């Protein structure tokens, strides 16, 4: 269970990007976060695994408070949070297998990592997962030889190698064509069900969000203004999520406080 309370993120002295945000994700649900660019979707996701440092508030994953962790404890916590990126973030010059195994770097020693002496069970698990997403025959290919869809599959397998308790996906399909994009969304949904894994997906494509996820969270300028089943997302809710600009939002803030 992921429980976020009063989360605030502010860069410098500017307007906060996340404003007192609360969010709870229970069970194995696939949750999508929608909202226009600059709404804070990416920041929210990156606060969870602390790629971005939250300013204040609390993030608990299965009872473990993440915001206070440092050094080794933080790394141990991160192992349990898988992440899939928009630009895949694969190491282009390494093989697919090395990329997949890089999901285990938090578990194995640097020496084992450098000498590529991966544990037998990790190799077995890697082949199983690669087989599952259809990239096992690419194990020895360099990552930059693969197509976009294949690369994102490597990204998904890498995240799953971590044996995560939750999977974060930051615009996982934004760099892909529509067809491949649907395949990846379907893959994420099916894997979540198979592995009983909660998944949190930032996504621009509202149609895909409606089809492939169990719950939609709508963000606007650092706040959650919609949180319901996909069916409840009607025209009115959409307009509310995608309307306005930061300036108007700030003015409205001032009116409210006045």
């Amino acid at each position, binding site marked *: 269970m992921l429980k976020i309370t009063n989360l605030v993120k502010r860069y410098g002295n500017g307007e906060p990007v996340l404003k007192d945000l609360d969010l709870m994700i229970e069970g194995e649900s696939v949750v999508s976060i929608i909202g226009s660019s600059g709404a804070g979707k990416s920041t929210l996701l990156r606060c969870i695994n602390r790629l971005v440092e939250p300013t204040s508030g609390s993030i608990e994953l299965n009872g473990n408070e993440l915001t206070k962790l440092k050094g080794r404890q933080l790394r141990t916590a991160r*192992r349990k949070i898988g*992440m899939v*990126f928009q630009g895949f*973030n*694969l*190491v282009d010059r390494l093989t697919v297998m090395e990329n997949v195994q*890089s999901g285990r770097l938090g578990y194995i020693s*640097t020496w084992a990592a450098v000498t590529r002496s991966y544990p037998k069970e990790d190799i077995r698990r890697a082949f199983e997962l690669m087989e599952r997403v259809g990239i096992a025959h690419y194990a020895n290919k360099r990552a930059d030889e693969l197509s976009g869809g294949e690369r994102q599959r490597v990204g998904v397998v*890498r995240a799953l190698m971590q044996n995560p308790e939750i999977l974060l996906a930051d615009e996982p399909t934004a760099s892909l064509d529509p067809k491949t994009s649907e395949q990846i969304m379907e893959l994420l949904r099916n894997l979540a069900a198979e592995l009983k894994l909660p998944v949190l997906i930032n996504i621009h494509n509202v149609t895909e969000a409606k089809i492939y996820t169990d719950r939609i969270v709508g963000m606007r300028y650092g706040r959650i203004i919609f949180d319901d089943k996909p069916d409840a997302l009607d025209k009115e809710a959409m307009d509310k999520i995608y309307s306005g600009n930061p300036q108007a939002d700030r003015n409205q803030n001032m009116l409210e406080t006045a």
Partner: protein
Amino acid sequence: MSEVRDHWQKPPFIANTALRWLVYGGAIAYFLWVGATMPINWVRVSEGIGRAGQIFGGAFPPSFERSGLLIDGFLESLKIALLATAGGVILSIPIAFMAARNIVPLPVYYIGRAIIIIARSFHPVIVAIIFVKSVGFGPFAGVLTLIVYSIGFVAKMLAERIEEIDFGQVEAMRAAGAPYLSTLFYAIFPQIMPRQIGLAIYQLDSNLRASAVVGLVGAGGIGATLANAFGRYDYDFALAITIVIVGVILISEGISGQIRKRIG
């Protein structure tokens, strides 16, 4: 009726007329003054022309009689260059990481940059003189000199490459909970490896050239052979050495250029 505007002139480099004439006039006056006050003894220059004639006269035809000495000198230069490149490149890697702003904390960055600046600020000949004084004449001083020289160049270029990496790959390793060193080996090394190899090959070529120069001040190799030939007024042998140096440098430059083109 409005005037037809058909005249345009580029605005002067310095807008203020008085300041402009002052700057230009000052620069010309300074050059004239430097030329006039430079201590040039024309009598000695005219005597020198005769001496130069003697040297060039003595140098022709070049003598390859003592080619054994020449080959020994070159093999020593090659050894110096190889050792210095290996040592310099290996030492450059950690220094380059220390000097890359995007992966180390600020104090470490300053230390890394300081090492590079110090290594770069002295010409190899000056470094060679210091090492010859401290470890004595011979190739070891040459190796140490060229290690410093290599660090100055390789570490600087490599640090700049590290600062240009795709940080997303580093982020992915961090997100997986990878420790610092594992992150370096997986996310950064693969990205900088082609540049690293290119720099090493370029530096080997550059060190071979520099080893001839530092040899002149006693740091071994072909430069030492050349200095001895001059000291003994064997101008024909000196010319032979010079010809071979130019030839070898051209060849090594060609080879290193080819290799760098292939891997680039």
